[in-house]
């Protein structure tokens, strides 16, 4: 029996797992996908918001501001990439200017550091490509950008280093109260725990309904579509650019990414499906139209990819983080939509230090190591390190992905990490192979071969993304 089972290994579940691993306690994380962070954590704007936008007094406001600060520790401990872009909220009319002034008051109430209003001239000094329509801006200096999926990966790897267990491809089908524990059932296993934490993202409602008669919220999935510009546009803009927030949230943004790309989006459309996020011609057209209102001469000819993600929104304006009223050993961490990425480390602290410890005090584990052993990729090494790496392994000399400059040794390292890659997309998320101009046209076949060789599988046994989605269907050389 475990002390805790966490359902879901997105940014919220992995952060809670890592937070719990600071204590002498046993933890199991169950994930239905074949990797961490495959849904909302993978497909979002990647912004560490300052906290200027969520309404003062909400959990969103509190955890966003605190989480933004906590990312400084995560950067040092987990080596996650953070790009300190700063943010500019841009107003294009008298009316928007009034909203901007209110936003400034809200930001100050939330204790967001350094916010100030800027006139058009000062804005142009910071960001010379803002459109002619922009009249005023709110500077939010603590806005940064990270690579969200990697935050979840590293948090999970660090939690595993500190004793947390992780099972992937395990879909929870039932939760039952049995004596002093909760039984969590998957297709082939039953796991028991004293406390179950529901961090299932868009599936939080379905999970909660397994143990509650009346789930206190309804999940209302909201799709967001995005365009990605090639990393060679680096420097086109240097700040995260927001329009003035509207009824549907923060609007369509332009976001410089840690690897040099620029992300433009999202849209905001309610839909029924919890985990299917198609892009649409209308959505992508809307993004272009709205982005053009904020910034001039956007190089849309440099679009290399489009994608969509699902926000795990609920029918309330705030996160729902509380013990179940029907089953007190079941903790909801639901409705984690924007600014969920930013808030995640603060949410994790709140869940452990307030919700859990109020009922069950936990003892600190003196052996907890907050740091993770990271592997530096070849393109991030200096000349001396590159030479040393090559001397130790000649596969550092073989460039597999020339668009993003990824070597064969980099790929093998990512396959062999504790939470290593076992599909083409898992490798793409870790090593950026196929993230460039050719989108894998030149290198996918090499990724398949290297995965097969390193994992000791057949070429036809290598999945594209999800389990049982092989890239190659049949070996034409094999006798049939």
């Amino acid at each position: 029996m475990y002390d805790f089972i966490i359902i879901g290994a997105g940014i919220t579940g992995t952060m809670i797992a890592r937070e719990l691993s600071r204590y002498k306690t046993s933890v199991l994380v169950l994930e239905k996908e074949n990797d961490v962070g495959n849904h909302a954590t993978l497909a979002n704007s990647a912004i560490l918001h300052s906290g200027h936008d969520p309404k003062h007094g909400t959990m969103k406001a509190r955890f966003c501001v605190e989480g933004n600060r906590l990312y400084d520790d995560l950067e040092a401990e987990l080596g996650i990439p953070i790009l300190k872009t700063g943010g500019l909220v841009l107003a294009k009319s008298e009316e928007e200017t009034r909203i901007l002034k209110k936003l400034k008051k809200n930001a100050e109430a939330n204790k967001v550091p350094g916010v100030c209003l800027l006139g058009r001239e000062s804005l142009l000094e910071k960001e010379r490509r803002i459109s002619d329509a922009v009249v005023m801006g709110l500077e939010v200096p603590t806005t940064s950008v990270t690579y969200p999926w990697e935050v979840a990966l590293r948090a999970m790897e660090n939690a595993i280093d500190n004793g947390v267990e992780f099972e992937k491809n395990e879909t929870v089908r039932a939760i039952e109260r049995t004596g002093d524990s909760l039984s969590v059932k998957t297709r082939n296993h039953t796991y028991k725990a004293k406390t179950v934490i529901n961090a299932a993202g868009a599936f939080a409602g379905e999970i909660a309904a397994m143990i509650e008669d009346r789930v206190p919220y309804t999940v209302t999935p909201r799709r967001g579509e995005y365009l990605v510009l090639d990393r060679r546009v680096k420097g086109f803009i240097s700040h995260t650019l927001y329009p003035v927030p509207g009824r549907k949230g923060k609007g369509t943004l332009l976001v410089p990414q840690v690897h040099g790309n620029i992300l433009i989006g999202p849209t905001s459309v309610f839909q029924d499906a919890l985990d299917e996020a198609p892009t649409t011609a209308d959505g992508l057209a809307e993004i272009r139209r709205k982005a053009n209102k904020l910034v001039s001469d956007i190089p849309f000819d440099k679009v290399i990819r489009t994608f969509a993600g699902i926000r795990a929104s609920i029918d309330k304006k705030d996160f729902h983080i509380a013990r179940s009223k029907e089953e007190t050993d079941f903790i909801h961490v639901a409705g984690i939509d924007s600014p969920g990425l930013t808030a995640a480390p603060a949410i994790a602290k709140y869940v452990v230090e307030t919700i859990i410890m109020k009922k069950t005090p936990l003892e600190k584990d003196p052996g907890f190591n907050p740091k993770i052993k990271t592997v530096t990729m070849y393109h991030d090494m200096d000349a001396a390190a590159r030479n040393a790496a090559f001397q130790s392994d000649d596969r550092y000399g073989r460039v597999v992905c020339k668009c993003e400059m990824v070597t064969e040794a980099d790929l093998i390292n990512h396959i062999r990490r504790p939470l290593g890659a076992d599909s083409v997309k898992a490798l793409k998320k870790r090593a950026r192979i196929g993230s460039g101009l050719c989108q894998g046209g030149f290198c996918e076949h090499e990724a398949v071969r290297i995965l097969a060789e390193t994992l000791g599988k057949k070429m036809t046994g290598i999945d594209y993304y999800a389990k049982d989605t092989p890239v190659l269907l049949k070996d034409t050389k094999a006798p049939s």
Partner: protein
Amino acid sequence: MSTYDIIVIGGGAGGLAAAQAAAANKTSVLLIEKDARLGGILNQCIHNGFGLHHYREELTGPEYAEKAIDELTDKTLNIRLNTTVTKLNKEEDRFFVTYMNKEEGERTVTAGACVLTTGSYERTRGAIALPGTRPRGIMTAGSAQRYINIDGYMVGKRILILGSGDIGLIMARRLTLEGAEVVGVAELLPHASGLTRNIVQCLHDFDIPLYLSHTVTDIKGKETLESVTLSAIDAKGRPKKDSEKHFDVDTLLLSVGLIPDTKTFDGITFKEDPRTGGAYVDQHFETSVSGLFASGNALHIHDLVDFVTEESLIAGKAANRYVHRLKNKKKNHIRVNPGEGIDYVLPQRIDTTSKKHPVTFSFRVKEENAQATLRLCQGERVILEKKRRFLTPPEMERLILPVKKTLDVETPLTLHLEVDEG
């Protein structure tokens, strides 16, 4: 630091020809190829139809490559295989090329001239922003060709192809022969993008339907591809209502265009032609950077490899002349502009001080024409006039300006097309 006279980047058809020409007169040449063998994409093009112009016989891709490789006989030619160029810079009059391989690690070498014969990459789903989900089963036609012809693996059982470019057409036939069911080829334009012979031999002969003026408007399937929706499009390129056709397929191949691949290593920048996506060159295939040459698909997309070879032989020869020249001679450039009815024309400029060789113009027309007159003009003055039949955008056309024609040294050249009535 190793020093060469000329470095040729890319060992496909273009690089083989450029290196061969560059290595004449005991000129030291380094040919760098990222793959394990020379020949580039020819190696995966196992169908025939290559070499009719250049070798006067019909060859398969690998046979064409073998012939080109056999012609590399100069002892001053050095070859690096499995080697990727990561940087190209020019300082004063020297080029610095950084490459990586398993034998030497990361190395920088230098040369007096450089030829880019890096070929092209395929336009992707992302670049054309196809709507729908992103499941397994969507790839470029060239990737599928590589899997089937080099690695020996099938990628699908029921297949739809978007784009009627030559690779897509060839793959429709190849996949059919390999046992898959190709349910159709869709083309956004009102005419096919590939060569007529490929439409006939790859689609008609196998009863594969071609849907002209159609595009993909939805892709369904969460983890693996389940269905693709095609819609007819109107004259403005918008999908027509109620024209949807649904295809239950496990694979969607994209053959939606090739783009010159000269941007995947860091360093040097040169003037580009937005019409071709490649460099802006003169008649010797010299780019805006003195001593840097570009040819083949790295310069503009060809339908026939024979012309890649011819063009690259000229580029290689020009690089050879460049490094043996004692001092930089003064040049005088005039621009070459695409006029009425012309999509693009190469070279984009001509050095009028260089009069020894005829100039071959390569161009594509904007629309299909049964019969037309081509006029190369300087202002009102017609330099060259030719009548041509059956001009079509998928087929690259050529026009040769003989040495005896004299050009005004100040007026830009324009290539016009006039449609002949009747």
